[in-house]
């Protein structure tokens, strides 16, 4: 038996779900931002401290569960990575508290060939009018109990190959990426100089990335002095003061160093920490970079030259 959902019933389903959950219908083409901001907010108050009473309050999250509806596989994969980053080796309380109070429903417009590891329910397109429902968690099973889901013995199952994306394919080979990016720095590959000349250092790549998670913390004092708030906000490692210490020393004074660090984190440090490159090939940084830096071209160039160096005679 296959659990199916009629495509035409999707709006009714989300409406029904919104009686129980805070439903966000995520439409990738309508925003530059990924869903990470629902769990790691662009700017949030973590603590408030009241000077008169000396009471500390930890910011609470809403009681109602958040349901993110409509993520594609790349975004689900990215969220899975972010979950791991925020759990290991230490737990990030504020991220996980929100994340554990949420449900993820993926809507995949092509046939799924690999098991999906993150999310609660995946809706996979099987024919022009129907999706197959695969629940991954108890919460997902609960959703499937909804009247819009039907059990069918032999629904028509067509094959929809995933749209080919070079970047997504590149991103899969995390071992090669780790080696190539590392090599490109050790050998002082000219690409870093080239990127330094064209990168605006605006940080958009990090803001739109579904996995980038650098942040800073900052305290604010209410202008009447009654309370202080400890806030955290998205930072970006290409920004000027990212590595500047209180005494004034900047450990990455040149944009070249900072740009390389962005790559190094994504493709080398991440690989050593989590056996993955922190890129799922979603293409956002490629699409929204105002300097039109194309990560796919950059990675291809690095890999090409790395592989050339391997086949070149030594000495």
């Amino acid at each position, binding site marked *: 038996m296959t659990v199916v959902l009629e495509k035409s019933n999707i709006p009714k389903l989300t409406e029904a779900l919104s009686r129980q959950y805070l439903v966000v219908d995520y439409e990738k083409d309508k925003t530059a931002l990924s869903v990470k901001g629902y769990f790691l907010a662009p700017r949030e108050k973590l603590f408030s401290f009241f000077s008169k009473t000396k009471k500390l309050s930890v910011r609470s999250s809403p009681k109602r569960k958040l349901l993110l509806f409509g993520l594609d596989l790349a975004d689900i994969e990215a969220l899975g990575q972010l979950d791991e980053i925020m759990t290991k080796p230490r737990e990030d309380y504020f991220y996980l508290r929100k994340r554990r109070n949420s449900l993820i429903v993926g809507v995949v417009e092509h046939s799924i060939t690999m098991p999906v590891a993150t999310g609660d329910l995946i809706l996979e397109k099987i024919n022009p009018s129907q999706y197959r429902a695969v629940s991954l968690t108890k919460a997902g099973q609960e959703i499937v109990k909804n009247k819009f889901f039907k059990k069918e013995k032999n629904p028509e199952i067509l094959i929809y190959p995933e749209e080919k994306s070079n970047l997504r394919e590149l991103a899969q080979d995390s071992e090669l990426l780790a080696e190539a990016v590392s090599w490109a720095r050790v050998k002082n590959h000219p690409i870093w100089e080239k990127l330094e000349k064209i990168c605006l250092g605006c940080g958009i790549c990090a803001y739109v990335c579904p996995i980038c998670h650098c942040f800073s913390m900052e305290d604010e004092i209410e202008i009447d002095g009654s309370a202080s708030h*400890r806030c955290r906000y998205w*930072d970006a490692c290409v920004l000027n003061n990212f590595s500047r210490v209180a005494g*004034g020393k900047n*450990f990455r004074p040149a944009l070249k160093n900072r740009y390389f660090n962005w790559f190094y*984190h994504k493709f080398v440090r991440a690989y*050593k920490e989590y056996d993955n490159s922190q890129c799922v090939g979603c293409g956002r940084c490629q699409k929204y970079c105002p300097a039109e830096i194309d990560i796919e071209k950059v990675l291809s160039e690095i890999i090409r030259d790395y592989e050339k160096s391997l086949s070149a005679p030594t000495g």
Partner: protein
Amino acid sequence: MKNLYQPQPVKIEKIEFLSPSVKLLRLKKRLNFVPGQFVLAGLWGYGEAPFGPASSPYQKQYFDLMVRKGGTVSAAFHSLKKGDEITVRGPYGNGFPLDFFKGKDILMVSGGCGIPPIASLTEYLIKNREDFGRIYLAYGATNPDEILIKDMVDRWQKSVKVLLTVDAPTPDWRGRVGFVTELIKEMKVNPLDTVVVMCGPGPMVAAMEKILKSIGITDRRIFISEERKMQCGIGKCQHCATGEKYVCLDGPVFNYDEIDKNFD
């Protein structure tokens, strides 16, 4: 789930000038730490910053911070008085590998405000004096006023050879003048049986490493305590990353060969 970002309040038991720009904050709390580890100390409204405790790890009643007036947090700390509360979380990171140090000669090198973890280590070594061979502490300050261990030197000298030097002497200064690196001439060093611990400005560390290498002390026997911008303390925020390491999780104490190839 534990909220690792939530700090604990601690009371200031004593606050006094150690030098014109550095204050000692004695905090009334038992802190279980290994010398070299750090805490994030903060003040609501001003933020948090990393500090390596300077007191003995055996001290059960309190722990000490040495605070140089520099950023927002340290400036705010300077304006506090006895009885005020600050916050602390941690300790974080890895301290000095004390077991590895056992049975060896110890050479500690420190400059300027790099002294706190070295001071704490010195207290540990003195308490376990029979476990170690010769112990040297070479410490350089910009001028005699900036020597932060004036009160400790006499006590320490009984068990440890303390060598002090300043860059710019005052008329009443009777001690050495010059860089810390020059103090090595006054030490008896057996390169095969010595571990070196350094905490101080980058140029000092780099210059010292060259000298140590020339006398046969390998990078594997050199341990340094690194300084970086820190925000979360738990390996998330990315500010303290260097190469494949995080100073907050993998450091702040590193084997010199672990990080000298890093680009940042």
